[in-house]
């Protein structure tokens, strides 16, 4: 059974059809890519699946369970973690607290624990902290744990977002342009980190990306989205050679 299945999803923003008849199946452990020109509706698809918008039509199933229309925090706690295209970090919080915060749905000490500082709370907070530090280690920024995020360089902020998304314990990780604004060095590092977490945690990854080398190297299957519709789906080689994709997005090489 597919881990994530989207069936015939269509979404309208008023009179604008942003996504049309979108279908997706992701198996456990798969890395998939979503490419397409600006404004094609890639981020909208992310927002639809993660519950920020409710699709006008269609159904979304996670692990066979319908999640269409559930609030985002529910969907996140059921196993879809995500990062954002424009960093959305909490500017007054330090790195460790970011990762701890993403454990919110697993906290069971309740309000009594929060108000009165019970033993259960201290135990649980300590566990969360330990796990958070391990995740920071995984993305290679453990030494920055007590830094306020706004003081960090851009590449490290991206890693904080990644660690935070991993802390929600996702079965699928949605990465919205994980290398946007990165220099070539940071890009290579990010690619290694994504490979590393994929190998380490065995989760499925669904990513939006504009850098073709990155997508082609990482993904098993790639979808190309143009004006809200999937025009091609296949392996990197198939996509690279698909005339429709070349026409709409990749562009032809100039013959010399």
């Amino acid at each position, binding site marked *: 059974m597919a881990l994530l299945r989207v069936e015939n999803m269509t979404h309208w923003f008023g009179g604008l059809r942003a996504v049309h008849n979108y279908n997706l199946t992701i198996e456990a452990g798969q890395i998939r890519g979503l490419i397409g020109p600006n404004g094609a509706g890639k981020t909208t698809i992310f927002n639809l699946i993660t519950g920020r918008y409710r699709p006008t039509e269609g159904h979304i199933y996670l692990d066979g369970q319908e999640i269409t229309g559930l609030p985002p*925090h529910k969907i996140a706690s059921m196993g879809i973690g995500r990062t954002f295209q424009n960093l959305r970090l909490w500017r007054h919080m330090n790195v460790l607290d970011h990762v701890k915060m*993403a*454990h*919110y749905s697993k906290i069971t000490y309740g309000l009594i624990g*929060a108000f009165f500082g019970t033993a259960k709370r201290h135990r649980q907070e300590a566990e969360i902290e330990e796990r958070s530090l391990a995740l920071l280690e995984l993305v290679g920024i453990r030494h920055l744990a007590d830094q306020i995020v706004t003081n960090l360089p851009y590449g490290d902020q991206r890693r904080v977002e990644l660690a935070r998304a991993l802390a929600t314990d996702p079965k699928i990780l949605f990465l919205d342009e994980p290398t946007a604004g990165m220099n070539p060095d940071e890009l290579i590092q990010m690619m290694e980190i994504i490979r590393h977490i994929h190998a380490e945690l065995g989760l499925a990854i669904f990513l939006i990306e504009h850098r073709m080398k990155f997508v082609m190297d990482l993904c098993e299957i790639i979808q190309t989205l143009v004006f809200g519709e999937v025009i091609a789906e296949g392996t990197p080689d198939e996509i690279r050679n698909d005339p429709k994709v070349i026409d709409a997005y990749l562009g032809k090489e100039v013959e010399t």
Partner: protein
Amino acid sequence: MSANHTGIKSRLQKMWQPFSQVPMLGWLVGALVAVGLEMSVGTPLARFLGMSKIPVLFGFTFVLKDPLLIPGVIVYVLLIYILPIGLIARLTARPMNRLAAKLLNTSMLASVLVHLILLYAILHLWSDISDYRLLVTRLTLVAVMLTLSLNVVNGYMGEFSCSHPGFMALGAYTASVFSIVLFVQDNRFGPPLLPPGLGPFAFPLILILSGAVSAVGALLVAIPSFRTRGDYLAIISLAFMFIVKSLFENLEIVGGARGLGGQPHWASLPIVFLWTILCIWTINNFVRSTLGKALNAVRDGELAADAMTVNTSRTKMVAFLFAAFWAGVAGGLFAHILGYVNPGTFDLKKLAEVLAMVYFGGLNSVVGSIVGAVSYNALSEALRPLELFKWIIIPLLLILVMIFRPTGLIAFKDFDVRKLLEPKQKPEEVEHGLAAR
């Protein structure tokens, strides 16, 4: 110019250097000795220096009325407060550091209790001098509760709520009605329903109940306004405040605009002190837990918070109701301190005061709220003889704070109790210091 400036700064730093090693315990013992000294020799000393009685608020009142007393007041404050506290803190720094370390090693709780007992003893002795001091101390403690609870909403959650006087009024009236109906012979409500001797024991329950009533009131504000972000909460909560005020103005059964009197004087200093500590403790616990820090996540990026499994509407609701609860408790205490409430107390001026204390002290900070409430109240009492000018000086100060520290004096700081109570010298250093001798 700048060299001169740094010269002064470094000299001040050098002067302060020996005191930086004094632990909290040392300061508290010093202050305790100072208030004890004032109790025993304060009156004769004050008479000797030309004052009619002990200057209640460090002589501000005397000085503002009669500038000729300035030297006397300075000598008094120096002899009674500054010199004893400074000397004792400095001389006992080493043993106090060792004691503080030992206490912390035994248990956090023991250490906190010892410090709290000392703090209470200081407040008790200090306010024993006059009824006025007692009143100011208790009202200041109530203000601390109010400020802290509003900071949860306006600071930690980053919304702008204006209904705190309303919640306070709900709490004040609920507590008053219950204690009068149940335990007091009153010509409005008739004979007490329960033996008055039980009253002080039921008082905590009455306060919790009044907090709960405020929380229910908060629910009425929260349900319509938390669906969206932005100015809605500010507007709805302001409306709520006025509704509550006019509700009590028109409710003849509780005295209408004339107010309601005859509350028994159960809100003594130890009771108010205990409730304040409880309030600070629970709020500090809350905002330092991951559940409480979710408030900051909601404030700084609700979308991201949602995607990170944070139940944002529950988080906001809980915090808002929690804040209202403490405002209600503060209101109940307030009514029993004064033994009288009227709706006029809970108006825009009260709102301005609470907001001023929050923003003056510092957003998103427990220490900030305590500092804000205490300094605002002290200032407000000290400048009382200036009458109208007080309301020029205090706003001016607020404006200055907003210009130079836009988020308040001590903003965005965790209140780490352990750090506060820690010995300020490492044990090795102590040993080293001894060896060097």
